[in-house]
């Protein structure tokens, strides 16, 4: 069924009894051309683009829980392509371009809102660093504007401009950045993939990877053995465990990242704004709640919940940037498990097994990358060749010394 204003009208007139489930709940078949492990944003997007762009529809997506239960529903919904390094920037810009046409493409309202992403700077050195990043973005054909203090004040007059320790000097603005309703991304991709013949199999956990003669032949799951021509891993925080089933040791640690929503407030933040003197980013949802987050907790975790020390730290950073937040109440908080790679950049690559493909290491930047990650991973699986914007995301870049270290932290995942 195609969603449109007319379909809403017609279904409204007939008591809304005509709506069907957005995707089927199929029994797993004995064999698929491609099996994707992980029914999150990236896995579903991969299935969608495999079917839509690359003509491979005999695909199963295996999800151990339900669609949207992992990181695709646990982020702060921000999209942007304000990256500095040549290995990253064209990829994230591809993602941004896909976001821009996504809703028409998969016929689902994902509430893509290009309200702008503003990174504040607080010192001369930081201004210079942001100028460099803005220039790098523009050289890659991405929009970037350096705002001075007066221009930022016009946008967000309630910021603490004269903070004694971190006065706000200005900001780097990407107007095309913004937010997307994250659940709708999972649902839209799931529905789009399903309607093209992909089987989305929920509550189906992979327990082992069966191999013969250097090739994967299928996966053992909680719903029985499923054979496959190619196996694609998109398991986010559980990547290390799934990869270990194929004796693959990854340059990844799993860490917990928390996010928060405040009580509903009248509209006052009209863009995404990030603090430059600490790690804090905030936007306001259409329901009025402030959606915000900060750093990862900093220790290995599979728990999907964090510690209060980080909550306090995030709240302090937020209050240092926007004093008016001091009396805002937190409504909800949650944690997601991030696949933190050793250089802070992702991996979309082959592995030592001919027909095993890996998509991992998204750190806490995976949501904005969802469309491009799916597209490039599908490209790799279908054509056995990296998509041109994802060529740098190789698994062997660590041992070869070609790291993509956007933050310059070295091999210390809890600092990226």
């Amino acid at each position, binding site marked *: 069924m195609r969603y449109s204003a007319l379909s809403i009208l017609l279904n409204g007139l007939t008591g809304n009894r005509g709506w069907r489930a957005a995707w089927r709940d199929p029994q797993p078949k004995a064999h698929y051309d491609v099996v994707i492990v992980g029914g999150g944003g990236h896995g579903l997007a991969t299935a969608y683009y495999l079917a839509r762009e690359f003509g491979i529809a005999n695909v199963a997506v295996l999800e151990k829980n339900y669609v949207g239960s992992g990181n695709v529903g646990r982020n702060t919904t921000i999209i942007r392509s304000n990256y500095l390094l040549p290995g990253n920037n064209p990829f994230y810009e591809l993602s941004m371009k896909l976001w821009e046409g996504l809703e028409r493409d998969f016929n689902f309202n994902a509430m893509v809102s290009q309200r702008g992403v503003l990174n504040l700077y607080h010192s001369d050195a930081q201004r210079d660093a942001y100028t460099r990043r803005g220039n790098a973005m523009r050289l890659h054909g991405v929009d970037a504007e350096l705002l001075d203090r007066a221009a930022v004040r016009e946008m967000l007059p309630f910021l603490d401009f004269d903070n004694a320790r971190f006065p706000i000097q200005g900001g780097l603005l990407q107007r095309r950045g913004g937010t997307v309703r994250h659940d709708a991304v999972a649902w839209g991709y799931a529905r789009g993939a399903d309607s093209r013949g992909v089987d989305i199999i929920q509550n189906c956990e992979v327990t082992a990877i069966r191999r013969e003669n250097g090739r994967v032949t299928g996966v053992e799951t909680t719903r029985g053995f499923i054979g496959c021509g190619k196996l694609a891993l998109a398991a986010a925080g*559980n990547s*290390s*465990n799934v990869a270990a089933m194929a004796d693959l*040791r*990854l*340059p*990844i*640690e*799993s860490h917990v990242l928390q996010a928060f929503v405040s009580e509903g407030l009248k509209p006052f933040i009209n863009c995404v704004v990030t603090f430059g003197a600490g790690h804090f980013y905030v936007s306001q949802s259409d329901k009025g709640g402030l959606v915000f987050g900060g750093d990862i907790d*900093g*220790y*290995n*975790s*599979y*728990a999907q919940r964090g*510690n209060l*020390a980080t909550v306090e730290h995030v709240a302090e950073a937020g209050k240092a940037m926007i004093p008016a937040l001091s009396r805002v109440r937190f409504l909800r908080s949650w944690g997601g498990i991030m696949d933190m790679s*050793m250089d802070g950049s992702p991996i979309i690559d082959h592995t030592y097994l001919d027909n095993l493909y890996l998509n991992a290491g998204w750190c806490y930047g995976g949501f904005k990358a969802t469309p491009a990650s799916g597209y490039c991973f599908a490209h790799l699986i279908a054509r056995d060749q990296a998509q041109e914007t994802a060529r740098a995301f190789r698994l062997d870049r*660590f*041992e070869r010394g070609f790291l993509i270290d956007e933050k310059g932290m070295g*091999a*210390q*995942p*809890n600092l990226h």
Partner: protein
Amino acid sequence: MASLISCPHCGARPKEEFTIKGAVLSRPAADAGHQAWTDYVYLRDNPRGTHREYWHHTSGCRRWLVVTRDTVSHEVGFCQDAAAAKLAEVRP
């Protein structure tokens, strides 16, 4: 995670005094070769469950500790001085 961590030197202290560095790994010899060093610097077991990790008692005795912690329940188990751990060469 428990609010109090029992430091072998300072006794029970609030966990906010500690900084967590990461997995306890044995450092290869200087001439151990490219693969051994790549493994040490970049590859991780990243276990779901018991994890041995270096903690620093930053706001206390400032000693490096080896702490055993569960990555699913966040339960903190054994906690000993890193130098003592190295001497004993305790490996789980």
